[in-house]
């Protein structure tokens, strides 16, 4: 009998079950989306090779449990027909999660789905000292919980006020959560204290005369954990306005983790050990 390389199977998305020679097969899902015809293939595979059900993972993934060791190659072939791929587990970049972003959601400030695909193509399954989670959320409502990821991306909108369009109605002041806008309706004056702005975009979205314009950007957080240890990812950089710079930041972050992380050590713990300023220094260099 040949020995089974469980580690290699796990790397390729086959998680060993309690039941001998059975695996829960993780699929490669990007930004929580799957085509309906692929969903049909998922149905067929779970019927034919599994036990007729799927498990929705905590990070927008799909797993088909009870795949038998002997069927693995055949299952992979069936999946390939509909463009399905297995996911990743173990010490590498995991599923890129995303909310629906401004393509669908009225609150969204960035295009999350296309960004998730971009990130998946570039970074998915890259080997690292430990698992590495990247999540994208479209706005401060944070449906996708950016800060629980090793690297979280949150959409933001940097507002710019255009005096000639303003009717000083006072709505932006009313909706601003950080109270950085103050309006004097009688004197037709507006003050905006930019340094306290959290880029939520509410002034821009609500303004009846489009006197507020917004520039979309990415607010990145680092070192979030939500496992054995819980800590909230921290923002270290100013808002980023281009995909190009965002990629430089991600690349520098992964390189940093690869260089400084110990095997089995989550990114946040690495930063606690070696010092957050060390990463900050590396990131400032690429900005």
């Amino acid at each position, binding site marked *: 009998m040949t020995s089974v390389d469980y580690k290699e199977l796990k790397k390729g998305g086959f998680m060993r079950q309690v039941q001998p020679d059975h695996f829960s097969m993780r699929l490669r899902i990007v930004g929580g989306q799957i085509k309906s015809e692929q969903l049909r293939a998922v149905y067929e595979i779970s019927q034919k090779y599994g036990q007729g059900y799927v498990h929705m993972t905590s990070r927008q993934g799909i797993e088909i449990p009870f795949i038998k060791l002997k069927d693995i190659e055949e299952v992979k072939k069936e999946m390939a027909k509909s463009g399905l791929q297995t996911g990743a587990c173990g010490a590498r970049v995991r599923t890129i999660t995303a909310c629906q972003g401004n393509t669908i959601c009225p609150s969204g400030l960035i295009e999350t789905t296309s960004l998730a695909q971009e990130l998946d193509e570039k970074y998915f399954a890259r080997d690292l000292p430990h698992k590495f989670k990247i999540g994208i959320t479209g706005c401060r409502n944070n449906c996708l919980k950016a800060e629980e990821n090793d690297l979280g991306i949150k959409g933001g909108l940097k507002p710019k006020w255009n005096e000639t369009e303003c009717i000083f109605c006072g709505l932006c002041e009313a909706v601003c959560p950080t109270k950085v806008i103050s309006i004097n309706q009688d004197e037709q004056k507006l003050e905006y204290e930019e340094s306290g702005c959290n880029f939520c975009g509410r002034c821009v979205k609500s303004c*009846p005369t489009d006197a507020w314009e917004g520039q979309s950007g990415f607010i990145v957080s680092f070192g979030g954990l939500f496992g054995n240890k819980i800590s909230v990812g921290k923002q270290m950089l100013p808002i980023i306005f281009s995909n190009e710079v965002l990629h430089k930041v991600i690349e520098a972050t992964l390189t940093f983790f690869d260089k400084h992380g110990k095997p089995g050590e989550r990114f946040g713990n690495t930063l606690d050990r070696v010092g957050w300023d060390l990463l900050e220094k590396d990131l400032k260099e690429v900005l």
Partner: protein
Amino acid sequence: MADKKADAFVDISDVVCPITFVKVKVAIEELEDGQLIEVKMNEGEPIQNVPRSLKDEGHKVTRVINNNDGTFTIYVEKGGLV
């Protein structure tokens, strides 16, 4: 515009989403384009969402008054953005 008297008034501080916006919509239905309605609402979720929904439907918020008691009063011109 800010000093113009409203043609109608609706209080939505006694209801929650989504009834807030529904109540405003029903009240606006009664008006002609260009007429002004005064809407009283709670701080928090209603002031965040109701004016934004009004914008999406083409109505223009012309003035917002903070009543400093946890409510806002807004003035809206029917069809003011169309």
